[in-house]
């Protein structure tokens, strides 16, 4: 090797990094993105189901074009998304757990919450349904799973998200409705499996294990088409399965760096006719039915009041 090898290698490393950083924001070069202002980065943390179904891939370039920003979408369950929001690491969050959303707003971390879409959960499991939950309500199904799982943990398993996400919160709610103490459930035996993963990965895991799982319909459909799931939907259409998605802007009075203007614009855009229209048809071509419902169609018990999605958020004027 020639002299000053180390210097050459070092120079090489520096050069490569300079070249790439000189290319500026790498996103600029990506063909699917038109040019945006790479210095304006709008960060949102989104619940995993909206991500795993591909909805954000669809919406992201449209908003980037509209607002001339680079949109950074971070994949996070509701629990983690709320934590990023509390710490001020993102500008807006997309979550689905009403109780914790209210707490987040009350604590002053978020403002301008608007609901923009909904769908339903379901319980899926092996076609043979060893626990016999087909035709049950959600609570009954959980009770049967618990009993069967304790009796025969090798055949009957339930995979929980176990990640403090909105889906996980809903699951806990159903356990308590069925009369169980959740802590007791999660420690009751090896039939109860905590995945600690996003919705898609949890579904794949349950599929591999031939286990029962609670998922939102959209992710279930998307994965069923993409990966050909062996587990099938067994329990649907319980009112408790209603799953409403909300967008919340981070309160600039708590985190002064939060980009409230873009967040407001983003939220108003989500409830606009344009996006509501996209949501009403998103996935129809591939799955034969849309994956999500526009929030305006929600008319059952548990649906948010109309002003939660019709009232545009006001412009932020500072404190």
């Amino acid at each position: 090797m020639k002299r000053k090898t180390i210097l050459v290698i070092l120079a090489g490393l520096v050069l490569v990094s300079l070249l790439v950083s000189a290319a500026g924001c790498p996103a600029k070069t990506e063909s699917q993105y038109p040019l945006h202002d790479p210095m304006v980065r709008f960060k949102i943390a989104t619940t995993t189901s909206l991500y795993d179904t591909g909805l954000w891939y669809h919406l992201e370039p449209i908003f980037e074009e509209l607002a001339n920003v680079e949109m950074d979408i971070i994949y996070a369950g509701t629990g983690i998304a709320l934590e990023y929001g509390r710490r001020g690491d993102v500008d807006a969050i997309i979550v689905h757990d009403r109780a914790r959303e209210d707490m987040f707003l009350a604590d002053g971390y978020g403002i301008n919450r608007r609901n923009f879409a909904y769908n339903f959960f379901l319980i899926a499991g092996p076609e043979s349904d060893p626990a016999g939950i087909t035709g049950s309500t959600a609570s009954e199904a959980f009770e049967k799973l618990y009993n069967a799982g304790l009796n025969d943990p090798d055949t009957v398993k339930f995979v929980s998200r176990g990640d403090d996400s909105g889906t996980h919160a809903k699951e806990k709610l159903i356990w308590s409705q069925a009369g169980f103490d959740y802590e007791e459930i999660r420690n009751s035996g090896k039939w109860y499996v905590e995945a600690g993963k996003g919705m898609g990965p949890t579904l794949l895991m349950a599929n591999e294990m031939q286990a029962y799982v609670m998922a939102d319909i959209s992710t279930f459909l998307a994965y069923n088409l993409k990966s050909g799931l062996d587990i099938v939907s067994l329990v649907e259409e319980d009112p408790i399965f209603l799953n409403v998605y909300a967008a919340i802007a981070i309160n600039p009075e708590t985190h002064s760096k939060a980009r409230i203007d873009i967040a407001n614009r983003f939220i108003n855009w989500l409830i606009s006719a344009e996006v509501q229209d996209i949501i009403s048809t998103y996935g129809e071509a591939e799955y034969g039915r849309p994956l999500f419902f526009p929030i305006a169609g929600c008319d059952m018990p548990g649906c948010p009041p109309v002003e939660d999605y019709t009232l545009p958020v006001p412009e932020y004027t500072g404190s």
Partner: protein
Amino acid sequence: MTELWEGLVTAVKLIISLDPEVMQIAGRSLAISATSSAIAALICLPLGAVIHFNRFPGKRTLINIIQTLFSLPTVAVGLFVFVMFSSAGPLGGFGIMFSPAVMVVGQVVLIIPLMLGLIISALSATDKAITDTAVSLGASGFQMSVITFREARFGVLAGLIMGFGRAISEVGLSLMVGGNIRGFTRTITTAISLETSKGDLELALALGMILIFIALVINIGLNRIQQR
């Protein structure tokens, strides 16, 4: 098996056709890890020299600690960097959370012990007579360090490459502080980790092949260096 086979075929097609997404992710991975390695090297080369060429109490202990940190868990570094650079953290003012910059910071922290330790070992492995000869021929302290580095260059280079190898192959840290943002902080490893779970096997396989190829190149390089 057919799924894997078809996936592999598509993956190879993605690579051969220089698929923009695959290439951008691979390029970004290389750029981020090269930047981290370059910064870590700029820190470790002088620091390694200072530690190696000076006598001070606790030197042995310090080197032991550095060597222990070779296997610093990436998620531990990820957590630490997250807490430091998150908006609410002490270094939140930089506003670099979920960006390539914070990934570079994390990788630098992650690989400094490895690089530093290997540089010190490489310097220690040079014959004591080399430094004696240099000093006796009138080298100043700095000139003596330079010639020792020159003599230890293959070992030092191996250390730098190992550092780069660790940076480009780690996933926990990049995922935690980078956020796997498409077109911004998505690297080979975070994409594999997330795309696999989304069932996008072809992309993951293509990226996996590229990563293995990079590892192969690194290993061939290391072997050639060590044979000298």
